[in-house]
């Protein structure tokens, strides 16, 4: 495998954006390219992740090309997935030896539609979508299954929220943050029992851009390159009633294949849009109880759909680049109740 490093990263998250996707993405792309030390024309490959349904427009990603520069023509691809999978495709492309560097981006707006309902159309279209279960309800079913199985307690869920929102105070990109005690949180009413509003993701609008580079050139470009040491993703069957919702085999498998357990981890950034999912993912991915997780605040502080997974990877990389740790696991997830999972192990030099 070729050594590939994350050499720059930029993001934008806001509760609700009046700007167009191009207007949101353009400055973020300019910032990431500028920070990389590369000219746009020096970046060999471009790959993005987004979903047409967030803005309700087919080919939404076609317009987004305007914001990142595609003239003269570029080698480019797009996944209808979170940007973390676009990063995976770009990493694979570098592994083929055809290219040495890549611009990876993603964007999403959760504010224009009822995002909980929009996501109901990713379910079984014959038997489940016609009942229009919103994502909070489905996650609530999972949370209750975990509570009933004794995998998580309500208090633990509140502890996750309290910790994430406190950490988010240091994150300028967080849209929900604050100092809340566990008891305070437990006094809040239920949104979709057993979930309270703060147990659910802080939906936001934004864009994420990252530049990655292979080998020695990465060393020239940054003081402390953050290397991708392992990278894997897996998917579980879709039917919620067929899955054991208290287990996430694909998360376990991808973390294992990415080499999460092959060395000491200093921290992790994971995609856990609902508070109980952090507890569940820690267990599945073998993260120690005392391992710092989501120092960014994670999805409970800012959840830009299609970008949040790439944000976790970028946040982890920037923390390592800044000297706050040497080895981390970053994780992305999509699909209802963590159906599809991706893990990447990052290491500073």
């Amino acid at each position, binding site marked *: *495998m070729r050594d590939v490093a994350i050499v720059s990263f930029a993001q934008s998250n806001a509760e609700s954006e009046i700007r167009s996707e191009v207007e949101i993405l353009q400055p973020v792309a300019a910032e990431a390219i500028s920070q990389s030390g590369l000219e746009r024309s020096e970046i060999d490959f*471009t790959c993005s992740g987004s*979903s*047409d*349904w967030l803005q*309700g*427009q*087919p*080919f939404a*990603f*076609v*317009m987004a*090309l*305007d914001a990142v520069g*595609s*003239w*003269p*023509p*570029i*080698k*480019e*691809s*797009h*996944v*209808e*997935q979170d940007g973390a*999978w676009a990063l*995976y*495709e770009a990493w*694979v*492309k570098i*592994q*083929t*030896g*055809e290219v040495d560097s890549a611009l990876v981006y993603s964007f999403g707006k959760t504010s224009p539609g009822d995002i909980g309902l*929009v*996501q109901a*159309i*990713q*379910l*079984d*279209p*014959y038997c489940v*979508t016609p009942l229009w279960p919103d994502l909070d309800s489905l996650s609530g079913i999972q949370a209750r299954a975990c509570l009933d199985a004794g995998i998580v307690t309500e208090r633990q869920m509140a502890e996750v929220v309290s910790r994430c929102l406190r950490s988010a105070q240091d994150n300028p990109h967080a849209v929900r943050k604050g100092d809340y005690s566990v008891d305070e949180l437990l006094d809040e009413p239920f949104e979709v029992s057993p979930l309270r509003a703060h147990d659910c993701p802080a939906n936001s609008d934004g864009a994420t851009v990252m530049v990655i580079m292979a080998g020695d050139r990465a060393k020239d470009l940054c003081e402390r390159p953050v290397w991708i040491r392992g990278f*894997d*993703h*897996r*998917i*579980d*069957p*879709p*039917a919620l009633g067929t899955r054991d919702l208290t287990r996430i*085999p*694909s998360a376990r*498998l991808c973390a294992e294949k990415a080499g999460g357990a092959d060395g000491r981890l200093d921290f992790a950034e994971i995609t856990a849009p609902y508070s109980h999912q952090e507890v569940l993912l820690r267990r599945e991915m073998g993260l120690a109880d005392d391992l710092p997780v989501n120092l960014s605040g994670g999805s409970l502080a800012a959840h830009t759909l299609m970008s949040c997974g790439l944000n976790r990877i970028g946040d982890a990389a920037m923390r390592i680049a800044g000297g706050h740790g040497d080895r981390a696991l970053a994780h992305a997830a*999509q*699909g209802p109740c963590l*159906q*599809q999972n991706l893990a990447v192990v990052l290491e500073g030099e």
Partner: protein
Amino acid sequence: MAERCAVIGVGQTHYDAKRIDVSMPGLLREAALRALEDADLTWNDIDAVVIGKAPDTFEGMMLPENYLSDALGASGKPLLRVHTAGSVGGSTANVAVSLIAAGIHGRVLTIAWEKQSESNAMWGLTLSPPFSVAVVAGAGGFFAPLVRTYMRRSGAPEDTGILVALKDRKNALKNPYAHLKMPDVTYEEIRDSFMLWDPIRYLESCPSSDGACAMIVSSEELAKKAPRKPAWVLGTSMRSEPVQFAKRDAVNPMSGRLAAKDVYEQAGIQDPRKEIDCIECYVPFSWFEPMWMETMGFADEGEGWKLTHDGTTALDGSRPVNMSGGVLSSNAIGASGMCRYAEAANQVRGEAGEHQIDGAKVALGHAYGGGSQYFSMAVFGSEKP
């Protein structure tokens, strides 16, 4: 450093306007199972799945591949979903090839699909946001002005489009999977067919189809075990450019020209006119055959139409184009690019059945999408590079 890669299995559904006999999972499995059977493999032999389709508005589903993952044997495996507009069938296969070339997997199932009958393509492609004026009627509405520009620029005879359509509709009669089969079709019938988007006639246009196309790509090592002759991937390329900018040439786009140049270089092709035996290219409206012949270097600018008129692109011509009947005969949009690849691969495998070109050694697959701004290409060879 890249690993050699081969196509060892190909499977397609029968294409039809409405495949009401199957569900969406059933449609995909029909193609995937045929590809597995062609390669004499089972679901267990597959390491990863790469799936592609065009806009999800057609089926009204978000991330439909997550729902379809277990239907494709992807449980516990990696699954990627590519979407690059109409070129997606090609770019999806390119991503699968990358996974082999990078040495990450041994065998990858790649599949592209569309079940357009769940809704209606004209509806799915014309969802105008507020404050705009809806005038562009579907894909034809977008591409007809480009065809007019090509006619004006090249001065091509007005019946070029009719001749391409006649050829592809005749070719489709030899393809068991083709959607449109018109055994008695004539020049006059095409000429007299309704002008949908003047200058594009009804019979010069592609249908709306349901269907899926699948391929198994494998490493060199595992290709040795394949029961049938593999198609070696000699090169793959992708290029994109903005949909619109001042003075953009959308008729002969730079991205298409660069993608062709790139894929020929990878395949070691000096002169495509001499070294490529046959071509499957994405021609949703018949005039795009001469246009793409120029973009891909098979004719000089303004002269692509001559290859149609002199019979070069005919099934018995010196360099046949769309032997399968092409997109004009079957168009499950997301799958159409992969069909071009699959048909090209089958030509060099000697598995193209009635529309086989004798002795085809090097074949080109081509797909495009968006506003003629996304291109994917691949060259397949009968001999290991």
